[in-house]
């Protein structure tokens, strides 16, 4: 059983929901990413989505696009991101790490080299925003052979037929994008999400994480009520942008954002 599966199964047994924060690796500086990952775990993260910076993040809004620019200014490469995961693993062997990004840096490194290095570094899953399952024929087997979970997106526009097909290619969890738009927009409609997620649940046994538009404990709880986990990105990355000069203040600010979400999600269990 993969580390992701183990964690999600344990949470489900406890009646709890997964809290999945996203940060961009190398933002504001490559030296602090591992430290920030531990901060997220201390504040209640169950799984970490670690963004691989890309020069052209066309599915992301300005907050994450700027984080990519900050990170790339320091020359952060995919290889370095894998080193960060390795360093994180040295003192945390439990928390799953999902790499999230775009295909081209992976292509540039080479699929096999990437799959080997990701496994060796302690990566658990890979979510490539611009890689639908139809184009993943070459890379998906490389992941599954190494026990890396392939996580794919489902969107409000995804038909039932595609939900079935995409779920069939996925492992770990599926990531439901809560609205039509880019990351960081505030357009989430919880009733709509509830309806869509229940439809997804009826079509696949995989856990469903919901991302896009979750900014505070209240939306986290509302989405957690209908899903298996909530993914929180832009609001954290925005906090990083605002506190980039003072790392201690940044860690406090991140924890202060995440902890109320943790508590709100855990209240759902009781």
């Amino acid at each position, binding site marked *: 059983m993969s580390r992701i599966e183990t964690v999600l199964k344990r949470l489900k047994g406890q009646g709890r929901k997964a809290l999945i924060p996203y940060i961009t690796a190398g933002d504001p500086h490559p030296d602090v990413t591992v430290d920030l990952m531990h901060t997220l775990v201390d504040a209640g993260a169950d799984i970490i989505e670690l963004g691989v910076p*890309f*020069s*052209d*993040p*066309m*599915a*992301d*809004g*300005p907050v994450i*696009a*700027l984080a990519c*620019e900050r990170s*790339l200014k320091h020359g952060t*490469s*995919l*290889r370095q991101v894998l080193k960060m995961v390795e360093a994180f693993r040295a003192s945390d062997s439990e928390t799953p790490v999902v790499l999230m990004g*775009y*295909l*081209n*840096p*992976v*292509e*540039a*490194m080479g699929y096999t080299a990437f799959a080997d290095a990701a496994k060796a570094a302690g990566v658990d899953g890979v979510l490539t*925003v*611009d*890689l*639908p399952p*139809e*184009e993943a024929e070459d890379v998906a087997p490389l992941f599954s052979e190494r026990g890396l979970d392939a996580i*794919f*997106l*489902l*969107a*409000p*526009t*995804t*038909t039932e037929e*595609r939900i079935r097909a*995409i779920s069939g290619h996925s492992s770990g969890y599926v990531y439901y*994008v809560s609205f*039509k*738009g*880019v990351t960081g*927009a505030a357009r989430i409609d919880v009733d709509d999400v509830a309806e869509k997620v229940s439809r997804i649940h009826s079509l696949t046994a995989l856990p469903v994480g919901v991302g896009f538009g979750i900014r505070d404990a209240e939306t986290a709880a509302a989405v957690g009520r209908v899903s298996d986990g909530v993914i929180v990105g832009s609001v954290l990355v925005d906090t990083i942008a605002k506190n980039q000069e003072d790392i201690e203040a940044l860690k406090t600010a991140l924890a202060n954002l995440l902890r109320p979400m943790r508590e709100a999600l855990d209240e759902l269990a009781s």
Partner: protein
Amino acid sequence: MTEEMLRSLPDSRGHFGAYGGRFVSETLMDSLMHLEKQYFQLRDDPEFQAQFDKELADYVGRPSPLYFAERLTRETGGAQIWLKREDLNHTGAHKVNNTIGQALLASFLGKKRVIAETGAGQHGVATATVCARLGLECHVFMGAEDVQRQSLNVYRMKLLGAEVHPVESGTRTLKDAMNDAMRDWVTNVDDTFYIIGTVAGPHPYPLLVRDFQAVIGRETRAQCLDKTGRLPDALVACVGGGSNAIGMFYPFLTDESVEMYGVEAGGLGLDSGQHAAPLSAGRPGVLHGNRTYLMEDENGQISGTHSVSAGLDYPGVGPEHSWLKDIGRAKYVAVTDDEALAGFRRLTRVEGIMPALESAHAVAYATKLAATMDKDKIVVINVSGRGDKDIHTIAKLDGIEV
């Protein structure tokens, strides 16, 4: 390569060999599949095709002439040089062929809002024009750098009723405009049609843009046969994304005797790293929804580009060109900014035709090529657009304030 193979691509998944495909976030997949289905129906629909042909004839002003550049030929001293005059189209470039086609598609699909990206502004102007013609709401994304370089076209778009959105992110050029257009599309996918300006992007765009632009090559073929009694020996067209080039090449793909040259922006020289020539000096990767040759660093980050021509300043290229390069059916070369500027001045002075700086790249290479060929050979240059929009750039280089 069999004839059938050359013409049959892309395959059902939008692949040209290893290139093309559909690399977009899930939100857009349904829309792309719907567009593909709808386009395949309309492609064979006589009513749609008749309407498209009528627009090309009465609104665009086609057919565009095939002109024998007698003085340029004499001065060059080699093969006969002929010009396919896409600069004479309404709005001044080949771009309008495609925007008319896609705007008709948008209307058939019932979409009222159109978005587009533009570099030099030619595609933006062509899109704003057809939106005015068909009563569609129009939004054009343009890199902030290009907004400055092409202020005249920005004003034209505004006059035509379009809203121009300057893009401040990334390198503030065409690739960033395309990123922002895709962001808008993801957000407004229900009511918005994205008119992509070149033969790149996710399937079916490279296919449908090629189909709309292939009128260039069809006309050239018939006109050359009519005027000279035979096919040309070489075709030369500039390649940014590559839509005018593929439009010219496609109807000749199975004519083995016809050589094809795509001319990329060599900028300050391929060795300088300051260029926009992915086929000449790049490698395959994935950007903007397709796999194709790209300019990127060793980590897969897309490189900044440079060209004197904003319209060629793009780090990628249409996937069909990548495939034609690999199988050797077309040759891809690069000329520098200086060579292109010399080409611009030469055609202007010798023939009284002021080409777009994009097209000037093709002129520069074609004259070099023609000089090496016998006098009985025929070279056709695709003059993809007119140079009015580039007057400010040229004047600035001459130290003149216009």
